[in-house]
């Protein structure tokens, strides 16, 4: 079979696998997990009717959203109002293309790198897509022709732009250490040695500050609590998706969770060694499979963290948000970059 065809097949297989995992497994459970967790934290049972432990709650929700009437406000810009959720959803779904979910596996006499497309601009790709995703919010806010929505859109755009900066600079220092933009390479680098002799060479150790900034910024980027000002129900009803209902709303819902998953995956990849385990080298087919499991576990943890934070912390005020982004994170991320550069220069990492 010709190499091109093989490559095509291989890519298709990977895509199928990833989508299966994300949409089929993670997403529904995530909805369930969040709601149960909310119940747990708020000391109430949470959804437990549909199926055992309410496990099918997600399915029910989706069905409901699918079946509800789809209202488009009279004075809304119909086209954009329709397009907006898609604009949000598509990037969120394509982000996974560059995230390595496992080490290289040997199958059918081929070395298959467990990442859909290990492009040399990996992280930039992710950033590009996320930055495009914001259009979804902004347009949703603008097109539905309602002041709450508009405000939500405004907020989201300002917020995303602001935190992209800090996030990007924090990420840059990661690549400064790894010496490449390829995420696969980043993971390999983190698996390659130790920091200060005993710690794993995960970026979260030498770049603790950067790691923190990245995580917090990710929360802001995904409009999650404590930075969910675009949909601050207390002030803006439901922010940018005030005027959305039924499956359009569902798309926003999905997109948010997909972004959340992607963000968690990124955190795991960039700062916590991705699919690698500290101190021991995974080899062989089973090693590869194990690496996938490891990656899944790490990602899961961060997803859990998202949920945990959401039900724990109060919301920021907008000016606080901006101050944090511009006056704290930006300088800190620059310092972090400097620090990392110094470390690289002195050969510490």
């Amino acid at each position, binding site marked *: 079979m010709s190499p091109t065809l093989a490559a095509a097949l291989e890519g298709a297989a990977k895509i199928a696998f990833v989508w299966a995992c994300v949409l089929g497994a993670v997403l529904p459970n995530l909805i369930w997990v969040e709601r149960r967790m909310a119940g747990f934290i708020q000391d109430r049972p949470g959804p437990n009717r549909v199926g055992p432990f309410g496990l099918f709650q997600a399915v029910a929700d989706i069905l409901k959203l699918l079946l509800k009437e789809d209202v488009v406000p009279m004075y809304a810009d119909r086209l954009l109002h329709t397009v907006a959720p898609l604009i949000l959803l598509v990037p969120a779904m394509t982000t996974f293309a560059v995230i390595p979910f496992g080490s290289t596996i040997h199958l059918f006499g081929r070395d298959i790198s467990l990442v859909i497309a290990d492009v040399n601009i990996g992280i930039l790709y992710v950033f590009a897509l996320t*930055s*495009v995703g914001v259009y979804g919010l902004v347009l949703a806010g603008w097109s539905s022709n309602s002041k709450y929505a508009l405000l939500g859109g405004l907020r989201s755009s300002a917020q995303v732009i602001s935190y992209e900066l800090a996030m990007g600079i924090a990420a840059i220092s990661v690549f400064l250490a790894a010496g490449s933009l390829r995420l696969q390479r980043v993971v390999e680098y983190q698996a390659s040695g130790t920091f200060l002799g005993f710690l794993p060479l995960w970026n979260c150790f030498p770049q603790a500050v950067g790691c923190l900034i990245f995580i917090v910024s990710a929360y802001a980027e995904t409009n999650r609590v404590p930075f969910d000002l675009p949909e601050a129900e207390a002030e803006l009803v439901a922010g940018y998706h005030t005027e959305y209902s039924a499956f359009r709303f569902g798309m926003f819902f999905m997109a948010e969770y997909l972004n959340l998953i992607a963000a968690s995956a990124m955190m795991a990849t960039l700062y916590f060694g991705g699919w690698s385990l500290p101190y021991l080298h995974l080899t062989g087919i089973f090693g590869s499979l194990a690496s996938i499991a490891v990656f899944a576990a790490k990602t899961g943890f961060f997803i859990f963290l998202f949920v945990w934070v959401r039900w724990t912390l109060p919301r920021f005020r907008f000016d606080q948000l901006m101050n944090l982004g511009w006056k704290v994170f930006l300088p800190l991320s620059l310092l972090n970059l400097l620090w990392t550069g110094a470390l690289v220069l002195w050969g510490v990492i």
Partner: protein
Amino acid sequence: MPAFSGQLVVFGFASFFALAFAVLMVVQRTPVRSVLSLVVTFFGLSVLAVLLAAPFIAALQIFVYAGAILVLFLFVIMLLNLKEEAADEDDRPVQRTLGLLVALALGGLLAGATLRAPAPPRGMPSLSSIPSPDEIPALGRLLFSDYLLAFEALSLLLLVAAVGALLLSKRKFE
């Protein structure tokens, strides 16, 4: 050679979208919509950039242009809450027709000129060659060696621009 033909197809699609949405951007009366059309055009352009063995630039295109600059545009448009511009009452027919003509003429001229121009000379090996599997390190090296001065000047420019923008858009507190 199938890969090549594939590239041709991609090129066709990308350039078609780019051009079509560029035209849309112009004819569109609603600022927000023109911005969106431009975003699409930029996507097309970045695809073309990938075809031209410049994935980094392509990503930058999306990241900076689509992701930052145009969002800023949108932000401003919303801030000023610009509705679609009214069909101008005092339309300048001369300006319109003449402008259109001149634009087309210039486009034609440029196209002709670029086509008739002789092929550019072989690139300098000092500016490492493309297409290459990974041009980003080379770009970085160039940026901090041959183009260092320009780079520094640029950073200064950005700083100044940031300060200026702040100053301009700041409300006067009295």
